[in-house]
């Protein structure tokens, strides 16, 4: 589904991302972990054509991301609060995204009704603009908005951060369901090793812009990741 070849991003002379080859098949739940500055957000930004690659390219469903806009209809994402329109209410925002993705109000409402427990009564019908919601609630709205319009690829940057434990658990359920039952390719980045191992069938570790580990998740994965990040792993 997503093919990355010889991709690199340099600022001045500093290389912040350098991926020779990365293939993400359709329907995979893919986790990206790494410390601050490892290049996770840079990779996602390149994937969304928000920054220009210094070399190489990404193909999303055979569409060259930095040359064509044709990947947009089947790709959706939530990177940070700058993906929200602060002066809209959550409902207005969902309908706006729905409009962009060819979904009418009824379609959007049908989708939203599945997320009642995820919203926990704090999003819909609050008579508040998105800019006045708490960080966690903003995130909930942004994540659900990324699910509107049956996208084939969903990109979520740090989806678990700022969420309360109940919501984190519910979000894990949602992501698993997307990949396993609906065949959606889900890309998630996180600092939280436990959450990613719970959710993702494959985990890639980035370090200073390079891929240092590429693991298929199993019972040992969490342990392996913890050893890696505690720095005590023997090389």
């Amino acid at each position, binding site marked *: 589904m997503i093919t990355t070849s010889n991709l690199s991003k340099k600022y001045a002379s500093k290389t912040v991302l350098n991926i020779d080859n990365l293939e993400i098949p359709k329907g995979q739940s893919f986790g990206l972990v790494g410390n601050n500055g490892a290049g996770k957000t840079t990779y996602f930004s390149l994937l969304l054509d928000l*920054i220009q690659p210094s070399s190489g390219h990404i193909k999303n469903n055979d569409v060259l991301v930095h040359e064509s806009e044709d990947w*947009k209809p089947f*790709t959706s994402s939530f990177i940070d609060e700058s993906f929200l329109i602060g*002066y809209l209410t959550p409902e*207005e925002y969902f309908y706006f995204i729905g409009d962009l993705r060819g979904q009418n109000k009824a379609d959007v409402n049908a989708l939203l009704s599945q997320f009642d427990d995820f919203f926990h009564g704090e999003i819909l019908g609050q008579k*508040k*603009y998105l800019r006045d919601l708490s960080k966690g609630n903003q995130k909930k709205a942004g994540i659900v908005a990324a699910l509107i*319009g049956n996208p084939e690829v969903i990109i979520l940057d740090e989806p678990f951060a700022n969420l309360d434990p109940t919501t984190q658990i519910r979000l894990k359920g949602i992501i698993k369901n997307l990949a396993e039952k609906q065949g959606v390719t889900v890309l998630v980045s996180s600092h939280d090793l436990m959450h990613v191992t719970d959710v993702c069938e494959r985990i890639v570790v980035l370090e200073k812009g390079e891929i240092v580990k590429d693991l298929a998740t199993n019972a040992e994965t969490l342990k392996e990741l913890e050893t890696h990040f505690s720095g005590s792993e023997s090389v």
Partner: protein
Amino acid sequence: MRIKQFVNLEWKQFFRSANFGKSIAIKIFMGFMALYMIGAFLFVGIILYKALRKFFPEMDPIEVLNNYLIYWILIELVLRYFLQKLPVLNIKPLLTLTVSRHKITNYVLTKSALSFFNVMSLFWIIPFCITLLFNGYPVINVLPWFVSLICIVLIINFLNFLINKKNIYFYAILGVLTVAIGLEYYNVFEVSVVCGKAFNVLYNNPILTIVPMVILTLVYYLNYKNLRGLLFLDASLKQKTEEAKTQDLTWTNRFGDIAPFLQLDLKLIWRNKRPRMTVFLSILFLLYGLYFYTNDKMLEIPVILVFAGIFITGMFLSNFGQFIPCWDSSYYSMMMSQNIPLRKYLDSKAGLITFSVVVLFLLSIPYVYFGWEVLALNFACALYNIGINMPMVLLISSMNKKRIDLEKSPMMNTQGMSAAQWIIIFPFLGLPVVIYLIPYLLSNAIIATVVLGLVGVIGILFRNLLLNKITEIYRSKKYAMVAGFKEQN
């Protein structure tokens, strides 16, 4: 925490603020503005004595000034009510540190004494007092009077915060003012004369300087009490949230697939301070025509009329258009990764602007009172604005890559300004004047009006082509815009 540390914080806040990181051109511009203001105040302070002497030869200048002092106080109070706010928000980080609330309160209040407004007053008060001394006024009178004035400036300063904070003060002052103006207007009792007398008594009796001092202490104390009680996160430091109201905008659906964007733009304008003020100003500028048309001499200069026509029908176009992608800067990366073809995005902006030009033209129809030529020329200007100026503004706007905070007031707000805003004005106003002037000089005003309108129509016919080109340019600048809008300046 010592005073020194507070000052240190203040210093850093100033020099590391977003304002300071602005482009060099804006810094220079703001610098000149500040110098100009200082110069103007200094000038007033220096010539004030002579001027008063000249205009009121039979009276003592200090007496004249005292008589009018009350008006200055009122004007200051009104200006400050709208422009000056007590900066409490930036003390949030201090609350949990080992600084007593007593100290923080005093710090905030003392700091406000050094505000721009207070300092500006000094620039005329000091030179005026010096000229008084040079002209042989006794130090024993001038110095206490000077101190009184400083006290009055500070009283205005603190009174303003009280008025701003608590409605009860606002209504009290408003009530007193209404009664005073009423009494004065109906000649029952001349408050201003009494005030003038009071200030003269103050000047003649140095000991009375104690009165403004006592009042100052009182307003300071009231402020202290007020602020002290508010130094909690939930009381005043948290910004108020307004209740969201959803409007029914389904009528825009008739505009087809640009409808969602149109709705978004209408909400943008309606719900955010800066774009809302921009629209308000455009409507206000409609009245600008009166300035031109009521003057017979101006009516005879064709260039002025073209100016007026372009201005009146194109005010929204220039005010809103020049910041076009910036309005969406806070969520631009979403717009660029969502399922939105850039062309559609620009189409909707173009649609909104066209709509505004039509509305402004319709509102300007009453100007037909000044002759049908005015109406015809305004119509031609409207066509020109839609056909040529609109694509041009969109084109130049593609140079924008500075973020705008929608909730900040547009007054004296240079946020989002860049070279684009300076470049735009020449072709925007100059080109139509040239297009009009050439046929005007060769034949007459009617032909010139028709030519201007026709040029606009040609632009409208090529609208599609022009927008395609502009879309390409926007696409090529996309990365720079996304990166630029991320910077919090």
